[in-house]
């Protein structure tokens, strides 16, 4: 029994890193632009399929193709932002939030539908030659692809953290989060900052998707589930807090692991969403932390 709990917890933590990587882009865009990109899960899905096809058609290892996936998703993000989201930046706050939400839904619907047409509804996964390899520590099994994924997620998040803290551009992004009007007065180009946040977010989502294809499996309809996972992690970790997002991801991973033990894996999503609703409503009521709702 203790080994079972330890094994579940280990898997939860390993998955949690991936959840953090999946959520950090959503959180960054929400913090910077104040709009919620509900097509975030579909960007993850595209990253997963890109990695899958590069592996299947060209035989490129999914870990080696990660930078290429990131670049591809940055380009897709660039197209989506310039074509659609940039049009709504100047709207009044309430309209901006609502319209970007609706446009995001349209985008997710289109991407999901096109993926179904092109990739079929089959479950796909990347099985590398080393997929089954694992090491055992204190009786707990650690599959190496999952450990590598956690490490990559951590590296990405730490890199983003230092980019935002130490570089001039990163500081401009944070200034925009604090007060976009004051940032404009200081000569920061808001449109550029928004675009940058959006493409970084897309790139991170793409890498997360590629890692999901390695660790689990991908389907065209996975977008909504991953958008919800990212939302839960974002709310658990605190908005705009990069390292907090990582902690939120681990927290969700561990929650999933505990639900696996009781009441059972099929209640995973329900427990996570209920947790999300409780945190959301208590934040709105100002029970703990700042009032954000």
């Amino acid at each position: 029994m203790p080994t079972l709990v330890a094994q579940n917890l280990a898997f939860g933590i390993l998955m949690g890193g991936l959840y953090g990587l999946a959520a950090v882009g959503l959180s960054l865009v929400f913090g910077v632009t104040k709009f919620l990109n509900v097509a975030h899960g579909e960007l993850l899905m595209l990253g997963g399929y890109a990695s899958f096809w590069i592996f299947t058609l060209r035989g490129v290892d999914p870990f080696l193709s990660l930078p290429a996936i990131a670049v591809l998703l940055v380009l897709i993000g660039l197209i989506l932002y310039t074509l659609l989201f940039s049009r709504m930046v100047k709207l009044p706050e309430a309209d901006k939030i609502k319209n970007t939400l609706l446009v995001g839904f349209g985008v997710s619907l289109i991407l999901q539908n096109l993926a179904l047409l092109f990739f079929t509804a089959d479950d796909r996964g990347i099985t590398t030659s080393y997929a089954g390899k694992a090491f055992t520590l204190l009786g707990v099994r650690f599959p190496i692809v999952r450990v590598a994924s956690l490490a990559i997620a951590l590296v990405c998040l730490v890199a983003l953290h230092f980019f935002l803290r130490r570089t001039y551009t990163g500081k401009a992004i944070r200034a925009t989060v604090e007060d976009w009007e004051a940032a404009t007065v200081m000569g920061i180009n808001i449109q550029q900052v928004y675009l940058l946040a959006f493409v970084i977010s897309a790139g991170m989502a793409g890498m997360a998707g590629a890692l999901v294809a390695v660790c689990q499996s991908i389907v065209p309809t996975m977008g909504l589930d991953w958008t919800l996972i990212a939302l839960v992690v974002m709310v658990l970790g605190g908005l705009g807090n990069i390292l907090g997002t990582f902690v939120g991801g681990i927290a969700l991973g561990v929650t999933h692991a505990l639900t696996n033990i009781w009441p059972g894996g099929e209640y995973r999503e329900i427990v996570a969403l209920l947790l999300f609703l409780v945190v959301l409503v208590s934040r709105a009521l100002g029970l703990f932390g700042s009032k954000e709702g």
Partner: protein
Amino acid sequence: MSGKQIIAIALIIALLVLLALLPMVIKAEYSINLAVLVLLYLGLAASWNILGGYTGQTSLGHAAFFGLGSLTTRLLWLNAGWPFFPSLLAGCGAAVALALLIGWPAFKLRGVYFAIGTLALAQVGNATVANLWPAISSLPAEYLATYQLAPRYYLFLVVAVLTVATAYFLVRSRLGLGMMAVREEEEAAESLGISAFRHKLLALVVSAFFAGLTGGAFAFHFTAYYPQFPFAPTWTFDAMMMAYIGGVGTIVGPIIGALFFVVTRELLVLTLQGVQFVVLGIEVSLEDLHLTVFGLLFILVVLFLPGGFVEAWGKIRPVFERRTKVKEVSLAS
């Protein structure tokens, strides 16, 4: 009553008579089923519109009320052996009860938080029902033997007409004006003594009631489906898209939206059936392209034509009217 109003009422009555006569004129099951689908989507879109359109609360949890209405009706009717109509009313009651239960916490959330909160709630319902009732729900053989399409059609017709009529009279009442005031500017409405919370809750309850009613009709019509199916998020998104494409926050918007949605989908499926081409060695079948088309149209409406087809008609109409006026003037002189 002005001449225009009399003409409008006469037209509506004529349309209703035509719709009532439809199953007697058209015998093809295919056409009746298509009409049923239009009415089903109309009920969904018009009930979403009461909360999402007139009160400005973009709910992404509409499927929860539709699903709960369908689940309750089906369980009482088929499993508990109740007669159908009490089961249908119980389905509506369950949807209203859920609305009252979640209303207080849900309306503590504003804007995007309300949207994602209701979405999460609907997904909780979706996953719970999938766990508790995993087996497909089929009509028993004795019901199947006597299955008739016409009563189903009439039920959907009554449901859709009731939904649209309620929305029509509601938005012309004091309460409806309050709902729209809350949509435009919550703080300003509050300062005029309009309780934003009460009006939002009222809109949610009315919206849930008719979503539940449509769900009950769904449970009556479909012979076999998974109980989870009406809880799927698509029902919410479809309703929202139809309301927007037709004209959000208008009475005719959902009607046009539902008609357009079902007819276009059918045409696309029929024309694209079997159309295939090969890209990068992948065989692509275009049969299900309609969601891409609606998604694109939806984005274009949100970005460029927030009033949907209703607004487009409002923009085109003066062109026609000016022409007729010019004619009248030239005749008079």
